[in-house]
C-alpha cells in the first residue's frame, strides 16, 4: 500500500499516553505506527483497538508535546519486534531495545516479536534440575529449579535487589558455562540502575548479562515493553542458543502501575483496587514465558521482584503474581529490623517445583522430610512466641520452650546467613543440627541423613 494514503492527520483526541485517530485504514491490532509530529520529531505507537475507521494508539514515548492538529499517525505494517543477536551480551538497552550505553546498535541476527507465542503445554519439559542459590532458606526449604518462575515479594526498603544479585552471583557458580542473566528493569531509580550495573560488573557477570532498563523518569508505556523485550531476548538465548537464562524482572509493581495508567486512560471498567480486570492474563503473558522445552537444551528461569504496597500480600499485585508463579520468596520487615539477612519470612514462602528438584541424586535423600520438619517446628515456635507475649514464659510447657529456642536459633543461623554462599550439604546439615533442639519423638517422620 502506498505510504501517503496511509498517513492520517486525523487525531481526534489525546488522553494520557493514548491517541484516538480517525480514518485509519489497514492497520492491524497490535501493529506499530509512526507518529510524526509537527516539528518532524518521530515517535512510535501501537494500535490497541479498532472500531470502523477509528483506532486507539498508545504512544510509546508519551503524548506530551503532540499537537492533535498537526501530528499524523502512520501504520507500519509491522508488529512490535526486537532485533536480537549474541552481541547483546554486556550491553544495556532501554525498554524498546535501543542501546543506552553509548555504543552503536547491535547488528541483529533475527527480529523477534516481543509479545512471543504461548508455549505449548504439551511441549514443556518438566522442570526438575536443582539450582543451588547458596541461600539456605531457598535451597533447603523452597528449592529453585531450572525453568521455574519464583518471584521475590519485597516491601519498600527491604533488600530484595541485594538478595536477587546474591542469587545471580551464587547460582552462576553452580550453573557454570551456559549460564547467563537478563535484567529487565521497570521504573527503577537512577540510583538503583547504577547499583545493578555496578554489582553485575563487580561479579564479573556483565559479559554474560543483557540489561533492558527503563528508569522512573522514562516513558510509562516503555515499562509495558521492557519485560517482553527482555523475554524475547531470553527465548532467543535459551531456545536458539542453548543458554540457561536467569531473567530478573524488577520492579513488577512499577509495571502494574503502568498497566493501570493505560487502563484508566482507556476508561476501562477497573477491577480490584482500580487495577485492570485483565491484569491476571496480562501478567501471565509475562510469567508463563519461563520454562523448558522438550528436546531443547536451554531454559528460562525467572525471578521477578515486586514491592508489596504497604507490605500487604493480599494486594492485587502480589496476589495475582502468586496465583501465576510457581511459589514466592517473601521478605519480612520484622526480620530486617532484627538485623537478619536475608530477611526471608519462610512461612509464606513456597516453591511449588521443589519436589522435582530434590532428593537422592539431586540434593540428598530425606530432604523433603527435613524441610517439612523444619517448617512445622518453626511454625510451632512462632505460635509459642505469640503465646509468650500473652501468658508469659511461665505459662509454657518444657516442650514449648524447646520450640521457642528452636525458632530463635533457626532465624539466627539458618535464615540469617549473611553473605555466605552455602552449599546444599551445609544447609541440610545445619537443618539437621537445629532440629536436634526438638525431641525426636515429636516428628511424624524421622528426618534422617542419607
Amino acid at each position, binding site marked *: 500500500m502506498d505510504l501517503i494514503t496511509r498517513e492520517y492527520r486525523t487525531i481526534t483526541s489525546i488522553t494520557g499516553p493514548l491517541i484516538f485517530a480517525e480514518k485509519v485504514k*489497514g492497520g492491524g491490532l497490535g501493529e506499530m505506527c509512526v507518529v510524526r509530529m509537527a516539528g518532524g520529531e518521530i515517535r512510535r505507537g501501537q494500535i490497541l483497538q479498532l472500531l470502523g475507521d477509528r483506532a486507539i494508539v498508545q504512544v510509546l514515548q508519551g503524548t506530551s508535546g503532540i499537537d492533535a492538529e498537526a501530528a499524523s499517525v502512520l501504520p507500519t505494517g509491522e508488529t512490535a519486534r526486537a532485533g536480537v543477536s549474541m552481541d547483546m551480551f554486556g550491553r544495556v538497552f532501554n525498554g524498546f531495545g535501543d542501546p543506552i550505553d553509548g555504543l552503536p546498535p547491535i547488528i541483529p541476527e533475527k527480529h523477534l516479536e516481543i509479545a512471543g507465542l504461548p508455549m505449548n503445554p504439551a511441549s514443556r519439559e518438566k522442570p526438575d534440575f536443582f539450582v543451588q542459590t547458596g541461600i539456605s532458606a531457598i535451597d533447603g526449604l523452597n528449592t529453585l529449579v531450572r525453568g521455574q518462575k519464583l518471584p521475590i515479594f519485597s516491601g519498600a526498603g527491604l533488600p530484595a535487589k541485594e538478595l536477587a544479585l546474591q542469587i545471580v552471583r551464587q547460582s552462576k557458580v553452580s550453573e557454570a558455562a551456559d549460564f547467563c542473566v537478563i535484567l529487565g528493569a521497570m521504573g527503577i531509580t537512577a540510583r538503583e540502575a547504577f547499583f545493578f550495573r555496578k554489582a553485575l560488573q563487580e561479579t564479573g557477570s556483565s559479559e554474560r548479562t543483557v540489561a533492558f532498563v527503563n528508569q522512573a523518569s522514562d516513558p510509562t508505556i516503555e515499562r509495558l515493553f521492557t519485560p517482553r523485550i527482555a523475554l524475547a531476548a531470553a527465548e532467543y538465548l535459551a531456545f536458539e542458543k542453548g543458554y540457561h537464562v536467569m531473567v530478573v524482572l524488577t520492579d513488577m509493581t512499577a509495571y502494574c502501575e503502568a498497566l493501570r495508567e493505560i487502563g484508566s486512560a482507556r476508561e476501562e471498567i477497573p477491577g480490584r483496587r482500580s487495577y485492570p*480486570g*485483565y491484569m491476571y492474563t496480562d501478567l501471565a503473558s509475562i510469567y508463563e514465558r519461563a520454562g523448558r522445552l522438550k528436546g531443547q537444551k536451554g531454559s528460562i528461569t525467572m525471578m521477578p521482584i515486586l514491592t508489596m504496597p504497604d507490605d500487604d500480600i493480599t494486594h492485587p499485585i502480589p496476589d495475582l503474581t502468586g496465583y501465576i508463579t510457581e511459589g514466592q520468596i517473601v521478605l519480612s520487615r520484622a526480620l530486617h529490623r532484627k538485623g537478619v539477612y536475608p530477611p526471608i519470612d519462610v512461612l509464606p514462602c513456597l516453591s511449588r517445583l521443589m519436589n*522435582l528438584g530434590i532428593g537422592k541424586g539431586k540434593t540428598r535423600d530425606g530432604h523433603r522430610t527435613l524441610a517439612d520438619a523444619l*517448617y512445622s517446628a518453626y511454625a510451632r515456635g512462632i505460635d509459642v512466641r505469640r503465646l509468650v507475649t500473652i501468658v508469659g514464659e511461665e505459662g509454657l510447657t518444657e516442650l514449648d520452650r524447646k520450640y521457642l529456642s528452636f525458632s530463635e536459633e533457626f532465624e539466627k543461623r539458618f535464615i540469617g546467613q549473611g553473605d555466605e554462599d552455602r552449599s546444599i550439604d551445609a544447609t541440610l546439615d545445619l537443618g539437621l543440627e537445629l532440629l536436634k533442639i526438638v525431641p525426636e519423638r515429636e516428628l511424624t517422620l524421622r528426618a534422617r541423613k542419607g
Partner: protein
Amino acid sequence: MKEIRGKIYGVSGPTVIASGMSNAVMNTVCLVGRQGLLGEIIRIREDRAILQVYEDTGGLTVGEEVVSYGRPLSVTLGPGLLTNIVDGIQRPLLKIKEASGGFIGKGVKAEALEMDRVWEFRPVKKPGDHVEPGAIIGEVPETERITHRVMAPPGVSGVIKDIISGNATGRAPVCVLEDGTEIGLYQQWPVRLQRPFKAKLPPEVPFKTGQRVFDTLLPVAEGGTAIVPGGFGTGKTVVEQTIAKYATCDIVIYVGCGERGNEMSEILTDFPTLKDPATGLPLSLRTVIVVNTSNMPVAAREASIFTGITIAEYYRDMGYSVALLADSISRWAEALREISSRLEEMPGEEGFPPYLATQLGGFYERSGKVKCLGPDERTGSITVISAVSPPGGDFSEPVTQASLRFAGALWALDPDLAYRRHFPAVNWLVSFSLYQTELLDWYSREISPDMLRLRARLFELLQKQSELREIIQIIGVEALQEADRLTLEVANIASEAFLKQSIFNEADAFNTFEKQFWMLKVLFAYMDNASAALKRGVYIETILDSPLRTRVLRMQNTPNDGFGKNAEGLINEIESEFSTVEEK
C-alpha cells in the same frame, strides 16, 4: 443453514465486531480474517455480530472477511479422546507440537481426533435389531483400561440394516439403519448444550478420593459437586491432581483452565507411568486433559470448561463414573469478565457480568448421577470438583459465593495451615458436606456401623480442640486441667496423623476406607485408654512420654495392605500398656 459472509468492523482484545451479518445465529462459529481464526457469535446487534475469538487476534484489520456456517461450537466425541491433551476448543496439542514445535503458532489448524485411525469395532447388535437413542451398538477397545461404547446418538432410532465388524475409521459409518441413517464412530455435540439422559438419580455412594479428610469428614457423593476455594499456594491444584491420581472412578477429565503450563507437563510426564491403584494400569489410560493455560487465548479458556464437561457427559452416557476436575473455575469467570468488559456491558459485582451465576449454574448442573439413555438401565455419573481462586483469599467474592450455591461440599483451604505445611490445608471448621446424611447408610453398611460413631467422635474432638486452643491463648497450656491437656494432645495427633496427608509419602498418599476406619479405631483406643490411666492417677507426663504416642502419631506411614492387622496389634499394645502403667 446457509453461509453468511460479513466483514470485520472492530477489534478489541479477544472480541471482534463483524458487520453485514444479518440472519446470523447466536453461539454459532465463524472463521475470522485471512487466517480463518475460530470465533463464536456471542451477541447480535442488528446486522452486527460480536464474536469472541478463540485464537490470538493480533494483526486482524478492519475489512477482513468473517464467514459463518451456522454451526454451533462443538466437540468431536469418539474413540481417541482418552490419553489425549487438547486446548479449550479441542485442538490436539500433541499434533500442534508436531506441526509448530515448542510454541503454539498463530492460526495453526488440526483435527480434534484422527479420523483415519483404525479401531477394532465389535458389534453387539445385528441387522434387524431395533435401536433407540443411547442404545449401545458396539464396542471399541479404546485403551487397555476403557472399553468405548458406541451409542446411537440422541435423536437416532430405527431398525439396523447393516452393521460392520472389525476395522473401522471415522471415514465410514459402522452401522446403517433401515431408513438410511448412518451411525459412525464419531459424533459432534454442541458444547453449550447438556447431553440428554433419562433421569437424575439421588446421591448415595461416596466418591472415593483416597484422602482421609475428604472421605471421612467431608465426603462428596458420586455425581455430586465439591468446590475447593483457597488463596494462592494453599494446595488446590495438588488436591485436584491427587484426586486425578487416586480417585476410584472410571474416567478423569482434567480441565486446566487458565493455570500454569508446568503443572500440565507434570501430569503429561507422570500419568503414562503412574499406576491407578484400583487396576494397576497407567493413569493416562483413563484420562483426558483439556488445558488452556493462563497465557493462551482467553476466549478459549472460557470454552474449556464446556469442552471438558461435554466430554465428561459422553463417557457418563456410556455408563461410566466420571470425575471432572476443573482448575480453576475463577479463571473461567475472569475470562467471562474480560470478554464482557470488552463489550462494554454494565458490570455487576467486582466487574463480573450479572449473568455470572446463571452461566456458572449451567456448568455445575451438568454434574450428577443419571440413568442413561438407552434400553439397558445403565447408570453413569459426573462428579465435579472445582478449584476456586478468590482474590486475596477472601471467600466473600462473587465467584466463590456463586459456586457455593451449586456445591454440595465445600473444602475450604486455609493459608495458615498451608504456611505450616499442614496439607491438605482444609479448614475443617468452615468446610462442610451436604451429602453426609445421604451417605451415612453406605458408611454403616459398607465399612462398619462403628464408622459412624468414630466419625462423630472425631468431629467432637476437633471442635473441642478449637475451644481449647482459644483458652490456651488466654491462660497458657500449663494452666489447663490434665484431662483437657490430654484431649488437646489427642486432637493434635488427629490433625497431624489423620487430617494431614502427604502426597510425597507413598503409604500415606492414598488411603482405602478400611485404613481410614482403622486409623480412627487406633486413635480413639489411645484416647480412651490414656484417659482411663489418667483417671487412675497416672502422671500425664508418663502418658505422653510413652513411645506409643509416637507410634500413633506415625501410623499413617503404614501401608493400606494389612493395615487392619497392624492396627489391631497396636490397639492391643495400647490396652495392655495403659492398664499396667504405674500410678503416681
